[in-house]
């Protein structure tokens, strides 16, 4: 098996991402814009429906919504794809010596591109609203890294679970559909009752990220506890996911 950090593997990573771009409509500017249509359609619908209910009390509500939609959509799309990645790429992984992590990371990166484009649009919106500061922008970078770590870690755990039980995919699809409602995408945590707020903050790993990201881009800045909570979740989930993946990848691959 080739070295994960070697030149060949880095080149492989780049080629896999490049091929994924060329394979989809991202290979053209119009295609990339087309893929952004879904989040903006969602943004428009949520804004029209909830503007009067939540828009008054939440600052820069369109930006608030777009951040929530971008985070939840990327998380849902990427993790759903990663859960079946060993199965979908079985011929490749059983007939070549490509590191399995590279295939996983290439998919995280490919879908992460669209998420990053949405983050750039959020940054432009934040500039428009005058809510972005240098400190906020700098604080965003570690949060995004931790978020990618969270997605990768959960994807790896999901890929291992899928090899044990095939309905993991269906269960996870159901969970990700619920995420749009159990994550403060269009409402604020403050609008919830104390027990609901506790559950949604502590049991939904996306909530600390979203709170910290919104604090950095819209303000007021989230407390250090929220920020550290988000970074810690990303790191711990990645380490746990990678450990689970490493210890079971061979048998998972054979079972898949």
């Amino acid at each position, binding site marked *: *098996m*080739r070295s994960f950090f070697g*030149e*060949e593997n880095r*080149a*492989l990573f*780049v*080629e*896999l991402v*490049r*091929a994924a771009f*060329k*394979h989809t409509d991202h290979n053209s500017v119009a295609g990339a814009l087309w893929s952004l249509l879904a989040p903006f359609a969602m943004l428009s619908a949520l804004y029209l429906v909830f503007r009067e209910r939540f828009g008054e009390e939440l600052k820069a509500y369109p930006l608030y919504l777009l951040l929530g939609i971008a985070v939840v959509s990327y998380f849902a799309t990427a993790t759903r794809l990663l859960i079946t990645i060993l199965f979908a790429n079985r*011929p*490749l*992984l*059983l*007939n*070549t*010596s*490509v590191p399995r992590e590279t295939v996983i990371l290439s998919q995280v990166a490919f879908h992460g591109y669209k998420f990053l484009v949405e983050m750039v649009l959020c940054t432009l919106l934040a500039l428009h609203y005058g809510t972005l500061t240098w400190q906020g922008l700098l604080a965003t970078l570690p949060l995004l890294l931790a978020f990618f770590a969270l997605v990768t870690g959960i994807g790896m755990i999901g890929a291992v679970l899928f090899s*044990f*039980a*095939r*309905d*993991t995919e269906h*269960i996870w699809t159901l969970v990700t559909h619920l995420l749009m409602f159990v994550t403060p995408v269009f409402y604020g945590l403050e609008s919830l009752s104390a027990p609901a707020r506790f559950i949604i903050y502590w049991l939904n790993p996306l909530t600390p990220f979203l709170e910290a990201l919104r604090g950095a881009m819209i303000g007021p800045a989230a407390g250090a506890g929220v920020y550290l909570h988000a970074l810690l979740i990303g790191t711990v989930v990645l380490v746990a996911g990678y450990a689970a993946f490493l210890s079971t990848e*061979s*048998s998972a*691959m*054979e*079972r898949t």
Partner: protein
Amino acid sequence: MSDAVRLVNVAKRFMIPHTQRTTLRVLRALLRRETLRHELWALEDVSFALAPGDRLALVGRNGSGKTTLLRLLAGILAPTSGTIVLAEAPRALFSTTIGFMQELSVADNVYLFGAIHGLTRRRLEPRHADIIARAGIAHLQHAALKDLSMGQVQRLALSIFAETSERFLIFDEVLGNVDRGFARTADGYFRALAQSGRTLVMTSHDPAFLAAYCDRAIWIDAGRVRLDGAFDDVMRAYEQSFEDDPPVQPAPANGAAPEVVEPPLPQMEPAVPAPPAPTTAPAGSGDTSR
């Protein structure tokens, strides 16, 4: 000289599920301490060594464990027990169709397939035109791969893979659908490999193909090494093993009366004169042997 490859008592076990696994079935099995899988030993007690420059043919029937053994050598699978020591990591070509993307152009697929087989874009870029030309599809370099025939894809795959410079190469049944023209090109490539002093391990169901490049063979039978030795000796024994195989008969055509297979008539043999009947049979003389 130290070995290029050494396998000692290598075994590989797969756990085959009995049933489609769902979360509830897995949880129930855990609670009841049942197992949803059974063991399948694909390889058992496989030991052999290759010196640098050895050219080994792995032969065996379908499902005998050849590809599993190659995957172990390539590091794709890990052995369940035993030791595999490699002086150098091999480069393996298991399939000439896996590693391409059908929607991409031939030109893009050269880099993708190359990267999957350890060849960087930097290394392939100066050779790009030659690789496509060698595959005989220069006029198709901007076509999508899906528009190529299977044989053309195989030619492209082998043409890209020929750029590898590793000293240990593995080929698993890679020349299936190529035409005679490319078979001749491929023959030149494999002959050059065979003379280059590289270590080769190949499988094929075509004995003539293996005979052209290999000087040693291992016959794998039901996951075990049945015979290891000079190519001709092993192949002779392997070919003989097919002689007892029953032929597969086609089913009767629709509407045709089912063929009645009558048992063969007993051979007519000259009657043996009956021995004179004993007048009194001794008690307990039940011996019927003649």
